[in-house]
């Protein structure tokens, strides 16, 4: 038997130890995994309780009565076909004719024109600072942004766009509930409260006063222009939904609830 130097023996021992440790790691991991797999029923309950606790600080999904369910659903399907068969094809042609920057500009100009709606709603909610920003944006966009085609105010740090305000939200902040769910032809999801708000918004919209005869056309054109900038959104939400009617209702309500809170 040859003599192995002490140094080498030590090295061998370290290697053996290392191998043992490394060998043990996957073994220990496998053991832990098998323990995981043996989850008892009470562990399931615990997991569910944990998941429920995740939601504790969040409001539940908004719920709203739908007494006109069958009428609403009929209009929902009508709108769906109207969009797919008429509005979308027209918007696609329009989109191919007018380059995007022009369409964005037109959208900006319409938004600018609707400043009174946001200004009045902000004031009625006591949000005077937001009302001031809206007024400032209106002046800067109108004068320096070519009647609002370009949002010149975006360059100014103090004049960044505040969250949208309208009269429906204003009524919401007064504690007035949604009432019940409504689906309007062409316009889509709404509620009793938001319908009342919308009627007021239309009254505050200068388009209705400057050119009353033209206003239906101007509004249709605005809608078409907006649609051309948002083609595909409706389809992608609808494609993801298992129950599209319930999905759009919930999206509308979640969105409005958030807007009222802002």
């Amino acid at each position, binding site marked *: 038997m040859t003599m192995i130097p002490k140094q080498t023996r030590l090295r061998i021992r370290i290697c053996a130890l290392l191998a043992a440790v490394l060998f043990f790691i996957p073994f220990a991991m496998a053991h832990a995994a098998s323990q995981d797999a043996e989850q008892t029923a009470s562990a399931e309950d615990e997991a569910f309780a944990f998941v429920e606790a*995740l939601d504790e600080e969040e409001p539940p999904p908004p719920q709203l009565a739908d007494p006109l369910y069958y009428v609403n659903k009929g209009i929902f399907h009508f709108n769906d076909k109207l969009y797919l068969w008429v509005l979308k094809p027209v918007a696609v042609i329009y989109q191919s004719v007018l380059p995007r920057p022009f369409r964005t500009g037109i959208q900006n100009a319409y938004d600018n024109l609707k400043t009174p709606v946001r200004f009045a709603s902000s004031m009625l909610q006591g949000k005077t600072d937001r009302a001031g920003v809206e007024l400032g944006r209106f002046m800067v966009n109108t004068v320096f942004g070519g009647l609002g085609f370009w949002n010149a105010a975006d360059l100014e740090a103090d004049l960044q766009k505040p969250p949208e305000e309208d009269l429906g939200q204003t009524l919401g902040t007064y504690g007035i509930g949604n009432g019940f769910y409504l689906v309007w032809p062409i316009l889509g999801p709404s509620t009793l409260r938001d319908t009342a708000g919308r009627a007021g918004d239309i009254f505050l919209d200068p388009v209705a006063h400057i050119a009353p005869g033209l206003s239906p056309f101007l509004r249709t054109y605005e809608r078409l222009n907006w649609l051309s900038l948002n083609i595909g959104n409706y389809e992608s939400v609808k494609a993801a939904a298992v129950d599209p009617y319930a999905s759009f209702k919930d999206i509308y309500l979640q969105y409005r609830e958030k807007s009222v809170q802002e």
Partner: protein
Amino acid sequence: MIRVLSVVVILCLSLHAPATGAQSKPLDDIRGPIERGVALLKDPAYNSPSKYDEQREKIWELIHDIFDFRIISMRALAREWRSFTPKQQDEFTEAFTELLKHNYLNKIQGQFRDEEVVFLEQDILTDKQAIVKSKILRQQTEIPMDYKVVLSRGKWRIYDINVEGISLIKNYRTQFKSILAKDSPEELIQRIRQKALEEKKSGQPNA
């Protein structure tokens, strides 16, 4: 000798450390896989339509682990979860995972090509709950997207996605509740499977 051994032990311990999640940050856990997934989109190796499915599976391989589909499924069913048998729970989880997978991949492969995802910050709520904030830049609009994450099985994983303040999972909860008011759990699972198939098909490049 002892010094060598202690180095070995420390090395081994540090190998274990990431699994406990104590050091991992929610933002990094979520951002890493998503950014790697989006990077695959721009990989010229997958340019031809024949590579589409391969790319899809590769992206999914990268990102599926940042979701906790069990928790997502429990939240989507809420109280109804308990009325499902264990077998139905498993089937539901599987079907819903499939639906979310194709949903998400359709969005990524279809839209993210001309969009940019920017991760902003993390909001630590408790030692197990956090929000990872990001935004999607599309032409001139910014869409805020928040990932709600939970520390689960050693990693931060997504249990809900909020787009412009709208919760995706709550939206599904409303849908499932409305379906379960009329139909059985089996029928719901069947409808979800059907939808997942449609989504998978509509994701095909020639669809």
